[in-house]
Each structure stands twice: as C-alpha cells, then as structure tokens.
C-alpha cells in the first residue's frame, strides 16, 4: 500500500512538474519516487509485514507477500526503464511530464492487479494499467506506426475488457459475490449454477489472455510492440506482462482453484499453442522488436505453466523468479537495441553486425540477455525455466516436453543477434555513443542477473 501511495503522489508531482518542461527534474522526480516505492516494498518484504497500511481495505486489496514480491519486480523494471528515459525520451518535448505521469499511473494499476481480493478491483487495476498504455503506445504522434499501434491496442484492448467484464458478471451471477474468498467457497461447496460459472471463467480467461498476449489472443502484440516507441515497448513487454500474469495467477489460485479440473486443460492447450506458434513465427523475423514481441509471446506460454501448477509448492516462486529474470534481461536487451537502432537508424537484426568490435561491453550485455532469455545455464533465465518446468512436470509432462523443444527452437532466433554481433566478419561496427544513464542501467541489470544466478533460491523461496 505504501508503494501505491508513493507512486500515486509521485505521478501527480510529475504531472505538475511537467509544466516546467525540464527533463532532468522530471526524470529525477520520477526515479526518486519509484526508488522510494521500491525501498518501501523491499522493507515490507523483509519484515513480512502484512498489517497496518497493508491490511484489507474495504476488502478490496490485500498487500500480502505475493503482492509485495511482484510489486518489487515491476518496480525494479520501472526503475531501470526510468533510468533509460533520460536519453530514451529525448524526442518528447511538451508532453514529457505527461509521459512520466502515465508510466507511473500505469504502474499503480499494476500494483492493484497484484493485490486485489475483489473482482471489481481486478477490473479497475487492469483498466488503470491499460489506458495509460494505450496513450503511451501512440506517443510518437508524428509516426504512423505509433498511431497504428495505439489504435490497435485500444480497440482490441477495449474489446477484451468487454469479455472480462461479461465474465465477471457471469461469475457474479453464479456465485452471488465479487469477493474472491466467497467465490472460492461457493465453488468448493458446489452452490452455484455450473454452466454460468464455467462460462464466466472462460470469458475471464479470454480477457486476461488478451492482456498477456496468449495465443489465439495475441494478434495485437507484434504490431503494437513494433509500432510503439522503444522504451514503451520495453515497459509493455516487462511490467504489463508481469502484471497480467500475477493477476491471472492470483485470480485462479484464490477464486477458481477448485474448478481446476474444468479450466486446467484449456489453459494447457493455450500454453501449448502459445509456445509453439510464437517460437516458430519468431524464427522468421528480421526486425528486432518484432522478434522480441514474438519471443515475449512465447514467454507468456512458459509462464502459463505456472498457472497450471497452481497447488504445487513453488509455482508462485517460480513465476516470480521467471518474471524478474525475464524483465531484467529484456530491459538490458532493449537498452542495447535502443542505442544501436536509434543512433544508426536501422531497426533490423543486421544493425548489430560487428558490434563486438567497438563496443565489447554492450555486446557482452546483449549476449548475456539473449542467453538468459533462451534459458541457457547458468543464467538466471535458466533457473526461472527450470523451476517452472519442475513445478508443472507432475501434472503435465507432455507439456513440459513441448516446452523443452520450444526452448531449443528459441535458441535459433536469440542466437541470430549474437551471431550478428560477434561472428559476422567484414562489417564495420555501428557507431554508438552510450549515455551515462544507460551505462548505469545496463551495469545494474548485469549485477542483478549475476545475483540471481548465484542465489536463485532467495527469490524462489519468497512466496
């Protein structure tokens, strides 16, 4: 709760400070607020404090360990992205304050999605998360792709929210409550209208699957990720995705856990389709952001394994570790991409040709990020995948087999970047000037990945 309040007030402060149009001030305020929120969350996590400001608030939220842990993940991601925003948002002038404000408000929505105990709060959280994102996707107002991305995201997002609302309504109709505990009890006792409940669960699944870009609700993702400004894509593929999954997991593990016999096989099918389709399509991409978009969809497929493993010890911890390592690796990869692509005006993977010659540090960062995303030991991404696979193995071994094959397939497109950087011989290295903010973020990301490699249990054991 403290983090939520801090972020909210920081966002308002940034909105007002936006009148001054001073980039330094705006970035500092936003960063300071996020770091403060992160520290507050960290302290609460260490103390295990779920009382005081974290208590039930009109039975709408509950900031338990789960919510605090995931808040920490998205706050780390946001701090890194805000660190990049000094140079990353250089094209924005009069709307800079609004942009920072929107990011922070979106983050508030994410925090609501981690801690909801009431369906209404889930819906509110999703909306608070998404609407600023619709605007941010279109923030490059003079670029047609950005406008296209915003429109696609908004239209499809609104439609999906409609499904979500209808689902919520049906679940309410079946169980007579919006409160998750009451719904869970109703399902366990069997006092509900089965057909309406099942329909409601499915529709909610559809709405949430859209948010996390699971197949077959993923068609918006490649275009939106490619068209949006680079930093916004980084935010969408890390924070928004983490929020979506944490919410999905929370919903299904608190409210619908006893109906697992019903929705288990559906989610398994969605996971299988997502992993396979996304990985195969990513093989053919030449645009880096589009490839990362498909890779992001495939990671959604892997994360659904955590949802399937609800009830097994360590499934939430596995998801936590996975989203954390995935977020950091993605942000580091995007950092290098932003430098190379924007300074050399080339958005394809070929832009990286020969990068290792003049910029060995950036090339090394990209290699480590790619290896982590591919899940190659001993990176943090490997541990994330390993814990996820182990959690879901007992119930769905065939799905793990498929996931394993998909991991191998994904190596091919992640390695395309590594090959371009190191193995292409006669290319001149792209010219890159690294601003100080980027150096800090990338170094910080590397340190975090190293820490996660050495002590993955510290994150895995948190929840």
């Amino acid at each position: 709760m403290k983090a939520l309040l801090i972020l909210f007030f920081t966002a308002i402060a940034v909105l007002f400070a936006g009148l001054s149009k001073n980039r330094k001030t705006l970035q500092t305020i936003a960063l300071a607020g996020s770091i403060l929120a992160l520290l507050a969350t960290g302290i609460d996590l260490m103390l295990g404090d779920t009382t005081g400001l974290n208590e039930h608030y009109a039975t709408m939220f509950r900031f338990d360990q789960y919510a605090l842990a995931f808040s920490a993940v998205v706050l780390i991601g946001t701090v890194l992205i805000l660190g990049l925003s000094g140079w990353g948002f250089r094209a924005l002038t009069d709307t800079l304050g609004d942009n920072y404000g929107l990011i922070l408000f979106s983050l508030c929505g994410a925090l609501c999605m981690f801690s909801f105990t009431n369906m209404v709060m889930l819906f509110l959280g999703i909306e608070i998360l998404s609407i600023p994102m619709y605007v941010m996707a279109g923030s490059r107002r003079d670029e047609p792709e950005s406008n296209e991305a915003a429109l696609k995201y908004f239209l499809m997002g609104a439609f999906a929210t409609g499904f979500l609302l209808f689902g919520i309504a049906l679940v309410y109709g079946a169980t007579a409550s919006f409160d998750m505990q009451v719904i869970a009890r109703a399902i366990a006792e069997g006092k509900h209208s089965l057909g309406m409940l099942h329909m409601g669960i499915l529709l909610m699944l559809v709405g949430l699957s859209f948010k996390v870009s699971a197949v077959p609700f993923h068609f918006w993702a490649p275009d939106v990720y490619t068209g949006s400004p680079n930093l916004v894509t980084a935010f969408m593929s890390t924070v928004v995705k983490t929020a979506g999954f944490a919410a999905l997991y929370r919903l299904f593990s608190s409210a619908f856990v006893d109906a697992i016999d019903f929705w288990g096989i559906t989610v398994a099918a969605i996971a299988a389709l997502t992993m396979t389709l996304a990985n195969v399509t990513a093989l053919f991409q030449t645009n880096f952001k589009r490839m990362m978009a498909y890779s992001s969809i495939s990671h959604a497929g892997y994360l659904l394994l955590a949802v399937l493993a609800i009830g097994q010890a360590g499934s939430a911890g596995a998801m936590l570790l996975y989203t954390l390592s995935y977020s950091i690796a993605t942000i580091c990869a995007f950092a290098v991409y932003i430098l190379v692509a924007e300074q050399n005006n080339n958005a394809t993977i070929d832009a990286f040709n020969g990068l290792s010659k003049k910029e060995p540090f950036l090339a090394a960062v990209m290699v480590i990020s790619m290896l982590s995303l591919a899940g190659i030991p001993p990176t943090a991404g490997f541990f994330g995948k390993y814990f996820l696979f182990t959690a879901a193995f007992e119930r769905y071994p065939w799905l793990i087999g498929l996931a394993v094959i998909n991991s191998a397939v994904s190596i091919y497109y992640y390695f395309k970047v590594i090959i371009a950087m190191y193995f292409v011989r006669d290319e001149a290295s792209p010219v890159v000037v690294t601003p100080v903010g980027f150096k800090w973020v990338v170094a910080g990301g590397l340190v975090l990945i190293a820490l996660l490699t050495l002590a993955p249990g510290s994150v895995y054991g948190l929840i």
Partner: protein
Amino acid sequence: MSLLLLLIPLIAAGFVLVARPSNGRQIALLFTLANLALTAYVVMAFQSGGGEALAFRTPWVPNAGISFSLSLDGISLLLVVLTNLLAPIIVLSSFGRTYEHENRYYGMVLMMLGALNGVFMAEDGLLFYVFYELALIPIYFICAIWGGQDRIRVTLKFFIYTFIGSLFMLMSLIYVYLQTGDPLAGNDVIRHSFLWRDLVAVPLSPSTAWWVMLGFFVAFAVKMPIFPFHTWQPDTYTTAPTGGTMLLSGIMLKMGVYGVIRWMVPLAPEAMHTLVPTFMTLAVVGIVYASIIAVKQSDFKRLIAYSSIAHVGLIAAGVFAWNKTGVQGSLIQMFNHGINVVGLFFVADLIERRLGTRSLADMGGIAKSAPRLATLFMIIMLGAVAVPLTNGFPGEFLLLNGIWNYNAWMGAVAGLTIIFGAVYMLRAYGLAMFGEPNEATAQFADLDTRELTILGVLAFLVLVLGFFPQTILGLTDQSVNAILGAVQI
C-alpha cells in the same frame, strides 16, 4: 580443494577477458600449469587419504534441494587429471597461430576448462547439468569466431543439436528428482534432492526407467557422438580452430561417456536389460561405419574426426557392457584417446600451417625433411592404432574383452576396429610422411622447440602409459568396483 580446481581456470578466464592484458596467452598458460600442479597434489592427496577430504559441499538453493557439491572419486579424478593435463598442451598449441582479439580466445578456453572440471566433479544432478551446458557456450564462441569456412551454420547446428539432447537429459533428471524424498513427509521438510546418492536410491519401474534412460541417452549420444547422432561432428571438428577441436575431441566428448558411467546407468539401471542391446548395436555400428568413412577421407582433420567417432563407439560399447573390464577399459581408453587425438590434431594443424592444406593428396615425403616430426607422429599414431606397448593397447584390449564377455558377436564386430584403425591411420601416415616429396613438402620445416615440447610430452605419455597402464588402472580400480556394486542390474 576441488573448488580450487574449478575456480582457478574460471578466475583466470574472467581476468583475461575483462582486464585484457597484452600477454594474455602467457597468463593463460601459467594458470593452466598452476592447475596442473594442483591436480598433481590432489592425486597424491587422494591416493593417501581418499576423496572425502577433497570434496566441497554447500547448499545452493536449499528449498529446491539443489546443492553446490563437488567431490572426487577415482573416476572423476581420472578425468580431471586428463582435463588439467591437456589444458596447458592445448593452450601451448594455440600459440602457433595469432588470433584476432586473442584475450577473448584464451578467456573462452579457460572458461571451458573450468566448466569441464566442474562437470567431472559435480555430485549434484542439477550442478552437473549446469556445468554440462556451461561448457557449450565457450566452445560455441571459439568455433564460431575463430573457425574456418561455413562456421556460423555448422556451429549453430552443433549448439542446437547438443542443447536439445541435454534438454531431454534435464527432463529425465527432473523426473527422478521428483521421485526422491519421502512422500509422507510434512510440507516444511525439504522433499526432494538432486544429490547423486539420493537420485540413485530412487527405485523406478522398468517402463519409467526406460524413458529416463532414453532421455539421458539422447544427450550423451549426441555428445560422444554415437551413430546416428554423429552428423554434427565431422563438420564441427573440421571448421573449428585447432584449440577448439582439441577441446572438443580431447575432453568434451568424455563428458558424454562420463555421464553414462556416472549418471545414466546408476539412475536407471532397471532399463539396462531392454535398452543396452540397442545402445550396444548403435555403438558397434558406429565403429564400423565411421572407420569405413575414415578410410576414404582425403582431408586429414576430417579423417581424425571420423576416427574419433570410431574410437568413442568402442569406448561407449565397453561402458554399455557394464562389466569390470568394460568399464575399466573405457576409463583408461578415454584417457588415452584424449592424449592421442590431441596429438593427432596438433600434427594436422602443424602440417596445415606449414603447407596451407589439409588434403593428404598434397602431402607426401614429409619424413625426409622433418624426421623429428615423423618419429613423434609415428609414436602417437601407433598409440591410436593400439599397437602393444603404446597406451591404446591396454585400453582396447580391456574394452574388447569386456564387450566379448557381454556378447561374443558384438565383440567380434567391435574387434574390426583394430583392423580398420590400422588401415586408415597407416594410410594417412604413409600418404603424409612417406613417398616422394613435392615442392611444398621438400622445404617442410622440422619441429621448433614449442612443437617439439608438445609432441614430445604426448609421445612420452603414449609410451609410458603403454608400458605402465597400472598407474591409471590403480587409480580407478576402487571407484569402478564401487559403482558396479552400487548399481544392481
């Protein structure tokens, strides 16, 4: 102590990669020699006190039952000795060429040596897997940056092929891991464990053991390689730079055989009866198949690559026979193969550097201008052919004995390796060293000091181990008995 063996090459790698000193190659050589000295000390400590004092164990992810456990028994120690013995030789042999961004090259070599040490010492299943994969990354970079033509496609194929194989091994490991521990224990007790002794203790039904063993087999069959999973090997060995090929053939493929001895058979012995005939057949077929192809090769490096498949097929068949002579033979032959194949690849590299070609047709009569090379090459080559009094002989004899005890027909077919080995090795030697010299080979410069040292040491080892194979057999005897006893087929 075992931790030090692991850390020294890794720290050296980090230093060379990050600090980028101007004399990186000498520093790399220094660290590998230091590790070799430490290994010698460890061997003495092992022989006087046993392996327990040398182990290093600490929990890594306690709530998931993963621990960072390194330990040494005779089998591990033998392979660690091989790794650290070949390390300075490999580094020294790379001095012959100047590589662009040299520090990265030596950094990668050192990193790989560290990972290889880790594989052989790991006592925890997941740690074994992590090191197994960790060894792939540096070799991928070595082959793809400093390799020959078509390296990008070939190395990517190698990486993905190997990686898919080891993912199946991961699935098998996870399955057995989930069966460990007491299902009736309470929720706050650590339920599962990855330690070797806990994984081995899990009883599996024959049908599940079948799947588990198959998962492991795919990984190790690709690594060794065993026919028909060998298609990546000739291309990769030929395109890799010499140091890379030596690392691959000298040490990395031993990871596969070691994995079979230490992990595949002990964890799923219930499936041995059903699966071993198939595995044995594939191994023996590989011997004959690879040998026939080797006879027809004109590219010297490719010939040695195929001969390596043949030799490893024999070693693998000996392990699958799972009797005392078979397993002992495989251990000693792994050691010998490491030495011989590194020597052969070094000679191939040497000739290629002087003549600019690897084709046997362009060679001939080198013995006239380079007698020292001819002599040392002959000794190493005879070791590869397994002539008595060279190191190859005791190994091959024990292996054939072991396979024969398992099944006489298999033993007979596997015995063809002796004949074929002689054919392709002697043919290669004859074409390269004897006959009339052409203009290029007439001015072939003989060995310089560095090359003389390397080949001298290797030839010396070939002869010493041929005269006194008991040094190795004594080291591994107890552990082989232990592992054969621990696994009830």
